[in-house]
Each structure stands twice: as C-alpha cells, then as structure tokens.
C-alpha cells in the first residue's frame, strides 16, 4: 500500500485529504506515480495538469521526479510552499 496526502489547492481540486492505495504496477518513481494518478479521475487530471506547479515529498522529505516510490511510503503532493 501507499499513503497519498494532498495539501492546499491540490487537496481542494482532488476533493480528498488523501487516499491509501495498493502500490500501482509499473510505478517506481515519483514521476511514474504522478502519471498514473493523473488518469485516476477527472479531478486528479485537473489537479495534476500543470506539473511545474506540483511539488512532492516522499516520507516527509522533498522529492524529485526520479525519487523512488515503494510500498509503505507516504507520498505528499502539494503546490509550491508559501509559508514564512
């Protein structure tokens, strides 16, 4: 299984705080996961359409497109941060 968490407008556009899913076949990296998630529903497609506005953390650490995604990990998807 894989724990997905959504924040800010990614959360609003997908309409969920997060979801727990079986690790999808063929998904080895963050980029693979985003591609696979985009096809999951029209809401996912819309939320992830502009990949340049999407940031990802794997197990609470900022990740790049090539960061491995494995069973049991927590993947958070969100827009660029705006704190401070």
């Amino acid at each position: 299984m894989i724990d997905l968490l959504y924040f800010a407008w990614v959360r609003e556009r997908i309409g969920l705080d997060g979801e727990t899913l079986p690790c999808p076949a063929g998904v080895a990296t963050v980029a693979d996961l985003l591609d696979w998630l985009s096809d999951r529903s029209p809401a996912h497609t819309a939320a992830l359409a502009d990949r340049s506005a999407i940031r990802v953390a794997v197990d609470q650490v900022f990740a790049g497109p090539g960061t491995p995604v494995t069973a049991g990990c927590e993947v958070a998807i969100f827009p660029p941060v705006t704190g401070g």
Partner: protein
Amino acid sequence: MIVTRVQAASFDAAAEITVLTAGRSNIGAVVSFTGLVRGDDALVSLTLEHYPAMTERALSAIAAEAEARWPLMGGIVIHRVGRLLPGDPIVLVAVASAHRAAAFAATEFLMDWLKTKAPFWKAEAREGGTTWVAARDSDEAAAARWRAAD
C-alpha cells in the same frame, strides 16, 4: 541551540526575544524577524495550512543547517498555523550570536529557507472568496543566494 515551534496560538515576539539573552553576558548581537499579516486589498483573514508530519522535520533541518553555517548562541523559530487576522504575527525568527554579521546572516537564511523549504501554504480570504497565495520567484531567488556559498 535553535528551538522550533509550530502553533495555532499567537506569540509574544518581544518576550521570546528577551528570553534569548536573559542572564547571559557572552552574546553581542540579537537579530529578530517578525512576519505579520498585512491587511492589503481588503483581506479578511489568512489561513495557514501545513503538513504536520513533515513540518517539524523540515524546521529542525533548517535550524540545524543554520547552526552548521554560523556560530550561534541560541535562537527561536515560531511559525503559526490556522486562521489569522490582519496585524497578527505569523512567524518569528530570532538568533543570538557573538557578532552581528552571523546574527543577520542566520536570520535572513532561516527566513529564506522557511519561505521555500517548509510545508506551509497560505490562503487569503476576501469578500469575493478565498485564493491560495502563489509562490514568488523572488523567494526562490532569495533562497538560492545561500547555495552559492556551499
């Protein structure tokens, strides 16, 4: 040691700064930054969302990086979450050091990294609705300054 806190409650910036130097006579410089909610363009409120499991980790990592780069003698980082009103404090960074150059640099560094590396998101509520604040290129550029020194 830089203490980090995330909280919904307000904070007293003045009291937090005072604590840094209380009873000490080896500190030569204290620099503080307080960020506040600006009531621009008829802002009604600002809501800060965060990613709790990651926030503490990120703040600790940012604080550790500052301590590795400069000889600091104490510091505090407080970041608020939840719904804030115009004039409310959002964030406090204060740093104590023997000399002013380190205190200024560490405070600016902590702010630049908080802006770009800590998982907080701001939503602005106005009469017409709520909009998420967009990340600013100038914040990325400010954070990138510190990479040149690596």
